[in-house]
């Protein structure tokens, strides 16, 4: 029996489509897609937000390649991304594998590991700011009572050091999340694979390289994309703790963009920086997906399910 939808049923479907998809689509387009397009247009005008915008051709873009602060920002951002990835990935993986295992105390540890996720970035920044205070902070107190001069530093005001302090604080904030990802990934590996490996007499190290790591591919890619795209746009912690200082040593691209836009009121040039930020984000995400064969992996999973 074939049922032919009559006109009123079709109208009902269209109405349902409209009611279901139109509201989120309107909201999304108005506040995400339109501003994205507007950012591209704004990058070709000169505008301080008050008078009428003036067409500027490619001069904002030319400025980007001449601007030493922007160049510094790109380098600082690259450093933050690379250092964050290198620090966070192994620690998250180790902690994720650890918390995925059985054993009473592990679930207690796992619960405590999650706590930083509850704090807002602003809260985390303020906490570390007072902890690292060179005069009254908790680390300088430790340095006095343990006679450890190494702990007495101007943590948030030293050109060579502060960027890595920031990276460490970011790691403190985000490792809990990636630990959860790895724990979920580990739990989804079929136990049969481990039993088979043990029956074959494989050593723990060998099991890790031959079973755990390959099975975690999917998690490694997901976590990596989130880590890299996330650290490209870190803003809150740096804005609150150093505002890009000392000098320009922690001025990442998103902070540079914020300052150019909302402190210097150069909306046109700020949009150049914004478009570059967006383009790098999209390129990195797409590139990582392609490079890692994420798409084919996903379809394999679907086939298996």
């Amino acid at each position, binding site marked *: 029996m074939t049922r032919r939808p009559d006109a009123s049923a079709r109208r009902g*479907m*269209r109405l349902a489509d409209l*009611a*279901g*998809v139109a509201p*989120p*689509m309107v*909201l*999304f387009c*108005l*506040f*995400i*897609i339109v*501003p*994205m397009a*507007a*950012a591209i247009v*704004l990058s070709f005008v000169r505008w301080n937000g008050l008078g009428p915008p003036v067409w500027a051709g490619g001069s904002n873009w030319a400025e980007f390649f001449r601007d030493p602060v922007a160049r510094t920002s790109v380098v600082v951002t690259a450093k933050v991304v690379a250092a964050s990835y290198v620090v966070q990935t192994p620690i998250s993986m180790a*902690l994720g594998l650890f918390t995925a295992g059985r054993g009473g105390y*592990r679930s207690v*540890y796992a*619960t405590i*590991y*999650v*706590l930083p*996720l*509850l*704090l*807002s*970035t*602003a*809260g985390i920044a303020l*906490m570390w700011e*007072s*902890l690292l205070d060179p005069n*009254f902070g908790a680390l300088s*107190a*430790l340095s006095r009572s343990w006679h450890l001069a190494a702990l007495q530093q101007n943590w948030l005001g030293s050109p060579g050091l502060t960027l890595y302090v920031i990276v460490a604080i970011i790691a*403190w904030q985000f490792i809990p*999340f990636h630990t*959860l*990802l790895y724990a*979920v990934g580990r739990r989804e590996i079929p136990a049969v694979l481990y039993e088979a490996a043990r029956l074959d007499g494989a050593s*723990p190290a060998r099991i890790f390289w031959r079973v755990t790591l390959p099975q975690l591919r999917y*998690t490694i890619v*997901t976590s990596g994309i989130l880590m890299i795209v996330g650290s490209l746009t870190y*803003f*809150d912690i740096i804005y609150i703790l150093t505002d890009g200082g000392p000098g320009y040593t922690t001025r990442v691209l*998103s902070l540079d963009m*914020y300052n150019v*836009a*909302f402190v210097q009121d150069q*909306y046109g040039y*700020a*949009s150049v920086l*914004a478009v570059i*930020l*967006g383009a790098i*984000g*999209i390129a990195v995400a797409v590139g990582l997906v392609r490079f890692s064969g994420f798409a084919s992996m996903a379809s394999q999973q679907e086939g298996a399910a």
Partner: protein
Amino acid sequence: MRKVGPGRVIAFVLATVWLVIVIAPLYYMILASFRTQGTYLTANPWLPSGGLSVSSYGTVFGAGLDRYLLNSVLLTVACIAATVTLSLGAAFRIVRRTSRAVSVSFVVMLFGLAIPVQAIIVPLYVLIYKMHLYDTLFALILTLSAAAIPVSVLIMVSFVRDIPREMIGAMLVDGASEWTVFRRLIWPLSRPVLATLSIYNGLNVWNNFLLPLVLTQSSGVAVLPLGLTKLEGLYSVNVPAVMAGVLLSVLPLLVLFVLMRRQVMNSLGKAIAR
């Protein structure tokens, strides 16, 4: 008794080191919040000696923290309500895949996954200003809900897709309308996933800093993360008050977390891993 190998000992030691790294700053913050301005400067910040007091908590409430708390609750509840309704409705239509316009809409929304808020913040500010919504909570509700749509729709589509087609088909054969299918089948089945999604979105909204920073200005509409930095501006020398403010802003989340620990632990990662 099982033999404890060296691997397990090393794992235990390293895991405990990380545990200390997580707990120590939190412990320090809690202790600091129970100092007065005077004892904060003189007492050892790691030892609960030298006089404790709750006066800082009173100070921050007097300084407007109650208002920030209320704003944050309003904003988060509104955004959760909006994203839950909008993303489930859209996901249902996308899975039913009845028209090309719906499929195109889905692709457009997926594109949004890759757009960072920083890339659109300047035009967004101009837009909100032109709409006369600058410095209102409503501006934050609209923009934060919009920003949450791509990931929410993606998660809900991948869930609704797993609901057996036969169940939907059977209801339609029985003469149910699309709306009835949605209300009687899709909505009840989706509730656990919607809870997970709400936790994830709720955390993001509660803790968001950039949009309130750019789109609001006055203390009356400040949400907690922004309000905390305002407190710091006000009391830059009163560290205990700032720490008390940070702790009070975590408290609602902590209560929810303790109540829903299992749900959060199991699902937070899964929601994203999809």
